């Protein structure tokens, strides 16, 4: 994004991967709960930390799959 490093996390790998974002993690959390289950702070932190960690690497990166479910 014009000099701004970007990262994202998505529950919908099938729709997101074809766009080829520079950095992304993928979960099986589901629509409406992208970061984690409600009030599951530990899961939310895991997803965020894994997704933000990608900013420390030059892009493009291969998709990163996280074992996080709804």
């Amino acid at each position, binding site marked *: 994004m014009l000099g701004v490093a970007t990262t994202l996390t998505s529950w919908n790998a099938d729709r997101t991967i074809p766009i080829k974002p520079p950095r992304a993690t993928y979960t099986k959390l589901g*629509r409406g709960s992208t970061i984690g289950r409600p009030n599951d702070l530990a899961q939310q932190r895991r997803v965020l930390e894994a997704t933000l960690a990608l900013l420390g690497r030059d892009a493009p990166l291969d998709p990163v799959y996280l074992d996080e479910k709804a």
Partner: protein
Amino acid sequence: MDILENLAAWTANFRAGWLATAEATGKLDWKRYQRPANAHPVSGKAIDLGKSRLVLISSAGAYLPASQAPFDAANPYGDYTIRRISVCTPISAIAYAHDHYDHAAVDADPDVLMPIRRLDEMVSAGAIGALADDFISFGGYQPALDRVIDETIPAIVREVKVLGADAALLVPA
């Protein structure tokens, strides 16, 4: 680097297919909707997040009912506008205008889509240098990608620059 490499062809297909059908019949025929794809990934340099200002960009349709118009969530052609919301806004002051996901989770815990509290914790821990003063919100139902590229993304980029962000976290709903 183009946001969508085959934008002209995609737009022609969209207008002749999905959009023409919708305008002629009022029906949204997703079998005629071409899912976007790129052949080449976007490149970019690494950053030190601990020394960076991060902006959150959410497609959850968040807005402030007291001061902002809601997104046009019922519009079958989508809403391509954005809102800026202070990260200090009380959670109770935020509403969601988006008809394409179940709001039960975000109503129970806004961090599932707008993780401001989790990100604040990471700032306190030194993992993130700072959060931008505002997060950027839009409604993720936007079938016309030509309008996303011509309207929504430039508006977001403009605000990201104003906010002085070095990095962005995108959270699709």
